Each structure stands twice: as C-alpha cells, then as structure tokens.
C-alpha cells in the first residue's frame, strides 16, 4: 500500500511575517517549518506502519527550494521518501492551481491513501484536500479524529467529531483523508532519526515532469486576486467591564455573537 502524506512548509507562526511587493507572503524573510497541523498527519502515517500496515509512506510537498526542509522534518519522524514539486511558475498560485499540481503529482507517483492536515497554518485554506479529492475523483473524509485502515477490505475508517454528534465514516480506497490535531501528539524525533531522515531519498519534480503548463498555475491563472494587504491592528486587549450586576448579560451577548451559545 502506498500512503502519501501532503506536507507544507510554512512560515513560523510566532515569527513576524511580511508581504512582498506582489502581495504574496514573503517566505524568504521568515523562518519556516513543517506546518504544525501537518505533523499530525505524518504521525498517523508513521503509526499506521508501526502498527503493522504494510505500506510505503511518501511525503509530497509543493513549494520553493526551502520547502525541502519540511520534507526532511517529516522524514525524520518516519516514512520512506519524499517528493518535492518545485517550479518558479508556481509562485502566486491559489488553492485551485495548488490542488491541480498536487493532483497531477499524486497521479504521477501513485497512491492508495492520501493523508493531509486539517489546514495549513499560513493561509488557512483547508480546502486543498477537498479539491484534490474532487480532482482525483476519489472519496474524501475530512477532519478525522482517528484513522484505521483495513488493507484486506480496501477501506479506511475514521471518526469525526461534529458539532453535535460523533460520526463513524467508512470510505473505499483510494481516498483522501484529512486529520485533525486531536489525533495524537506528533513525536519529537531523536537526533538519530533526524540524521536518518537526511539520508532518505527525495525526488524533485517540475511542472513539466507532471505535464502541467505554466499558464495553468501562478498568479496569472489564479481565480482570486489580492487587492491589498495590511497589518491587522494588533489584537486589541478586549473590552473589560466591571460587574455592576449586568455583566452576565454582556457575557451572554458576547457568547451568542461569537456563536458559542
């Protein structure tokens, strides 16, 4: 079985970020890391193999040269190899184009199960896994809280926590599954594992290798254009009220307004 985990190299969330002149995130200017949320998917893939599933685990990433660091981090946690799609034409792509390239890459390398994190911590577009499933024409289970694979039956079973119920969902393989950060703490790789991860093979692919024309991706092909970017006023220390007997109503209003009650 071939398990492919989608991983993304994102700017460090605690760092100070900036935007380049073309209104894209200036990724060169800040430290990057493997998206924290993707680590959960990596962890689940590794655990599948550890619990006896006969599978090869490949990590797939799309991004600039630096993105290979994300692959290395994933490989230090376990798994077999990495695939890095890198092409200057990709710069400025939106989710539509990103999902197109990833879909082509997945078809290129082959897969039985695609795992992804619940979102990326940079652009919070958790739509890519869904788009991928759509493009690949395979079932998709999102926001899984756990994961079980029945290789013999060719199915994957996932539990998801909805707003008011827990669902058990079964899908036939091949399938795309995205996993939440409730699936289990990702491991902290030992130095030994980091060194081993550095030696695992990473294949580099370009758009040409995947048969994607440069016009299909990048800013020009985007379905969305960014008109302006501004720093959000620093999160204001919120409103503070003194309870004069009416604060309960203020709190209740607040909770209702934010959709919590």
């Amino acid at each position: 079985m071939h398990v492919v985990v989608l991983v993304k190299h994102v700017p460090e969330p605690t760092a100070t970020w900036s935007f380049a002149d073309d209104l894209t995130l200036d990724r060169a200017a800040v430290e990057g890391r493997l998206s924290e949320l993707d680590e959960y998917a990596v962890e689940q893939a590794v655990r599948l193999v550890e619990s006896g599933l006969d599978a090869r685990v490949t990590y797939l990433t799309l991004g600039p040269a630096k993105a290979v660091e994300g692959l290395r981090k994933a490989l230090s946690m376990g798994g077999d190899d990495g695939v890095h799609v890198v092409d200057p034409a990709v710069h400025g792509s939106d989710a539509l184009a990103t999902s197109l390239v990833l879909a082509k890459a997945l078809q290129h390398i082959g897969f039985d199960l695609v795992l992804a994190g619940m979102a990326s911590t940079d652009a919070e577009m958790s739509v890519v896994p869904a788009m991928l499933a759509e493009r690949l024409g395979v079932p998709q289970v999102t926001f899984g809280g756990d994961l079980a694979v029945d290789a013999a039956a060719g199915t994957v079973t996932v539990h998801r926590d909805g707003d008011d119920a827990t669902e058990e969902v079964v899908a036939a393989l091949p399938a795309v599954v995205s996993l939440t950060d409730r699936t289990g703490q990702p491991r902290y790789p030992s130095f030994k594992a980091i060194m081993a991860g550095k030696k695992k093979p990473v294949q580099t692919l370009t758009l040409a290798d995947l048969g994607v024309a440069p016009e299909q991706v990048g800013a020009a092909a985007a379905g969305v254009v960014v008109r302006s970017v501004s720093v959000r006023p620093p999160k204001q220390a919120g409103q503070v009220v003194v309870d004069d007997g009416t604060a309960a109503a203020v709190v209740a209003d607040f909770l209702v307004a934010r959709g919590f009650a």
Partner: protein
Amino acid sequence: MSDPAPQVLVLVETVPADPATGRPATVRRPSLEQLTVARRLGTPAALVCGPADDDVVAVLGRHGAATVYVVDAPEVGGYLVGPKVDAVTAVVARGDVGCVLVTSNAEGKEVGGRVAVRLGSGIVTDAVDVQAGDGGPVVTQAVVAGQWLATSQVVRGVPVIAVRPNAAPVEPAPVQAVVEKVDVTFAPASLGARVVTRTPRAATGRPELTAAPVVVAGGRGVGSAEGFAVVEALADALGGAVGASRAATDESWYGHQFQIGQTGKTVAPALYVAAGISGAIQHRAGMQSARTVVAVNKDAKAPIFALADLGVVGDLHTLLPQVVAEIARRRA
C-alpha cells in the same frame, strides 16, 4: 462576473428539531449572517440540504431569502459532503446564481472547495467582511493566524466565498420565501464516504480537555473543590470541558489531569473562559492559542485581562451562575 446573475446562494446550516425539549428546528446563526451579506451582493437565496420544515423556511424568509431551494434526499445525511456538493452545483447549473456563500468552518470550506473545482471558480475562505464592489464582491480575509488582513476578489467563475461567523450582523428583512424542491442525481464519487454511525454528543458527556472546542477553566479564585460546580455548570451550558490552573489542581480542588499550562495540558479551543485565574505565563503557555478568551477576575490588574477578548471585573461565584441562567433564558 460579466453578466451578474441575480441570486446569491447561501448554503444553510440547520439545527434539527429536538423532540425531547420541544425546541423547533432552526437555522444556525452564521447562515443568517450570510443572508445579510447576500443582500449586499444581490438577491438572497437559500439552499437547505435535508428536510426543510416550515419553521426553517419561515426563519429564512424573515431574513430575506426569497427562494429556498430544498434538496431532501437520504444521501445528504448518509454521506459526507459529496452530496451537498452535487446539490450546490445542481442549483448553480440552473443559471441564476452569481455567487455562493458557505460558512467558513470545516464542512463549509470542504463543500466550497469542491464546488470551486467543479465550477472552475475562484474561492476565498475565512472572510471577515464581504462588500459589493466593481467586478464582484470584495472580500476581506484574515490571513496568517489572523495577523494580517487581505482584500481580494474572485476573477474567475461564480465566486465561492466561505464566510467566518460574525462577519456580518443578523438583520431581519422579511420576504415571502418560495420553496423550490430540487432533484439531484448524485455522482457515484460523491457517495464514497459513508457515515456508518452517528452518536449524539450528549451521550459522551464532557468532551476531552485537549479536544474540546470550549474550555472553562477555574483557578485559585474558585476557592474550593465545591466552588468548581459553577465552573462545571458553565462548561456544560457551552458544551465544553473543564480545566484548571496549577494553583487549583495543587489544592486538589480539581484533578491533576485537568491542569492547563507549562507542566500540564496544552489546549487551543475556540473559546477559553478563565475564571479566577491571574494569567501567569506558566498558565498562558498552555492556552495562548485559544481563539477567543473570556476572563472573569476580581482584580482589574490581573494579567489575564491583557489577552482577554472580553474581561469582567467581578466575582465569579455570582457571575458564572448568572451567565448560565442568561444562556438558558435565551435558548428557551
């Protein structure tokens, strides 16, 4: 959007009727907010996947949905988003829809993403504001962990916009809602992920602390083990878990496994209520990723207020029960 179609389609989220309490079926608040947005952009229309009882239609009409499309087929509840994607594209295929709005949550983004691929449309998620503009809706998005605001426009296809809760107010704008039932043929690929069982949440009690969407935490200010009853009551009212500061777990007022912070659990809920907690960095280390923070503390100088979205200077023992009562009153 060279030839803007008049309808702005809102994919509606409903809450089914609860026979136990007799509460009628209703529409989730974010969907009503999206009807407000829809009115800015064109003619609001609603799509209900599943049974649309009169109560639901009435609520939608009160908030301006002139047309209520209904796709009521067993597939809609029995499979994950696939059938809803089929439903949205079926309605769009009729040709009257100029824009699709979904809620920017897990399911909404999923449906939106797939619809966008099918329609070859641009999609914007996490919208915190949407206004009409030349060449289509202008969307303001919170990006990179909410540190930046970006405005963008969809330039291809029927725009699909995932709108965050609270992006717009709920405004009544009564119209006579016309119900239109839509028959959809579901694509086999849409039926790939089947829901086998569905266990209502109530049966499982309080959610697990690190997985809970809402955490209500008590600190030394709670004063005693018995005092935690008011904390628990609020947690239950919000469907959340109970947490505690180390001061409280050290006093054995609450179990050690509920300690949040540097040497306890790390939580990142959508809502964190800190009651009687001063907000030491050792505590904050465990909850600083919470999206919304409400703090209740007697001391107006407590550092927790610096990171609270709403702070109340007051006694938690009087305030929390009042809040619970207030929530219950509004639900009734």
